């Protein structure tokens, strides 16, 4: 069975490295990007099953990335988990409105984050197979 691929987008390379280690240990394949532009390019090329997205990014911040993903039919179904140091009070609702599946403030609880990743991957797959509310 192929491993689900997760795209990690963060402008701090040290954080990307740590996240890559943890995700690989949890049996995921990992792609990375450190700015908004390459995040979109990588999403198109690598077709990840899930994206972990920082908000403060050069070359198109996290909200721009969310908007681009939502507007691209082929990418709109990819669950995005926002992982940001920004204040949730002023950013969480905005991120969810823009299409994020969940918002975590840094530093996030690893177990909780891994759990939401698992559930999001599961429900994204289920949503693809299921016709919601048949008439």
């Amino acid at each position, binding site marked *: 069975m192929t491993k689900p691929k997760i795209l990690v987008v963060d402008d701090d390379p040290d954080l990307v490295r740590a996240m890559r280690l*943890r995700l690989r240990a949890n049996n995921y394949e990992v792609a990375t990007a450190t700015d908004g532009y390459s995040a979109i390019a990588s999403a198109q090329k690598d077709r990840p099953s899930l994206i972990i997205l920082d908000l*403060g990014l050069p070359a198109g911040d996290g909200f721009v990335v969310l908007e681009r993903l939502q507007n691209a039919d082929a990418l709109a179904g990819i669950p995005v988990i926002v992982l940001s140091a920004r204040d949730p009070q002023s950013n969480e*609702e905005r991120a*969810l409105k823009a299409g994020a599946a969940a918002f975590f403030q840094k*530093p996030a609880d690893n177990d909780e984050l891994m759990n939401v990743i698992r*559930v999001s991957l599961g*429900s994204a797959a289920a*949503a693809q197979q299921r016709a*919601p509310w048949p008439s």
Partner: protein
Amino acid sequence: MNHKTTSVLLIEDNPGDADLVRLRLVEGKSPVSVSCVNRLSDGLASLTKETPSVVLLDLNLPDSHGAETFRRIMDHAPNVPVVVLSGQDDEALAMKAVHQGVQDYLLKGDISSKHLERAIRYAVERQGLLRALEITQKQQLEFKNRFLSHVSHELRTPLTCIHQYVTLLVDGLAGPVSPDQSDHLKTVLKSVNQLHAMIRDLLEATRAESGKMRIESRCISLSELLHQAVAMLRPTADEKKVGLEIGVDQRLPLVLADPDRVLEVLINLVDNAIKFTPADGSVMLQASIVDADPGSVYIAVSDTGRGISPEAKALIFERLYQDPDSIDNNRSGLGLGLFICREIVRLHDGRIWVSSEPGQGSTFTFTLPIYSLAKLLAPVITYQDRLRASFVLVRVELTPATNPPRGNWKETWQQCLEIVRRCIYLDKDLVLPPMGTSGAAETFFVVASTDLERSGIMTTRIREQLECVPDLKAKCMLAITTVSVQLPASGEGEPLEKQVQGVADCVTQMILRSMERKPVSVGNGSAGKKQRTSQSRTQLN
């Protein structure tokens, strides 16, 4: 010299006095334009349309007298300087006026042209300075907020890096670590978490200070929150060998409160209590109703710690307060926790206080307002001073199709709640506020003074309207259940108020029982059975 025209609004009902003041004004050296009205209401209307440089105000007008006159003018136009022109040499009234923001208090008989001109000029200057000061203070507060928000963001980034790598090591993902090394790393992690909590408190306190702290109230059962707080802090208590007990009155009514915020207060108080209680001591968390205050629930956290001195008691809820005696072993925060608790409780219209004697332990108590279903139910379930024969309780349940829900779930259910509100039959029918801690599923209750047959029209309308919400079918499942509640025959000697209270208690219990049911499971094919409308009858005794 400033030759800009000074516009004066003169509010004076005596035509002779008005002419005299006008004469004094035009005699002056500076250009001035005067408009005169003789009633307070006309003055207020004029201030709505135009902003003069200054208001010259007589206090005794046909439609207002004394201090009330300047209070209403200043409430209406807080940025316009007001100079009182009075016939009364009343020093007490003059002081009162100045203390409340009037720029000057002049006696009509004493004013010369030069005197009046100068008084107006100074009044305008002083008001301008005050305004500038207010703006500066506001800007400083805004700057402080932005600064703290920026700093906390910048501090979180390296903190996250430390957290990530330490947890990698602790979890053994970067190779094996010895038990000793693991212990050391856990100590680092504890400090990282403390730093994180401090940053969070700092932001929270700033928010409280600038009035930006928000609560989202729901109808909640406190018992659930109390157990949640205890479960979260049980490991800390066990580690310190401190007993942690809970005592909840089973008949506790629902409260209207923000569950996340109340949990924050509970965790803060219980965590503090554990911190200040020696090994083998105990911490007790209780919730009860007090006869003397039937509108509130009292939540108390007591400990068997060393107690609080009277001096500390007076300051303990202030920002940055830390008990000087506790620095050696218990200091781990910024001293903002209790300040934040106080602000959260205050936003709920509750009170918080501490009672303690040194050496005798402490009890922190706070109150939350009871959600009085009886008051809201009365118009729905009574008719001509008697109980109706029956009413209908409709339960609308939205369960997200995915977990976590897709998109902005809060926005989705709030939109649905608004639609349900628009679908009710009569104005007096009720849609209760959101119930329970906000979990994945959201349940709304409608109380309608109708019968089961006719309620069908309403539930059909609710369903049809909800189905018009774009993407709702993809986002969640909908279940509507209707229960007809039969009321006992009235006129059995009990006052109507008591009968209504009895019904309200029963309805509260029905709602609570209904909330305890597990939400419909998702993701296993049950999504196809989306709308289940069941109808049943319940007899209240």
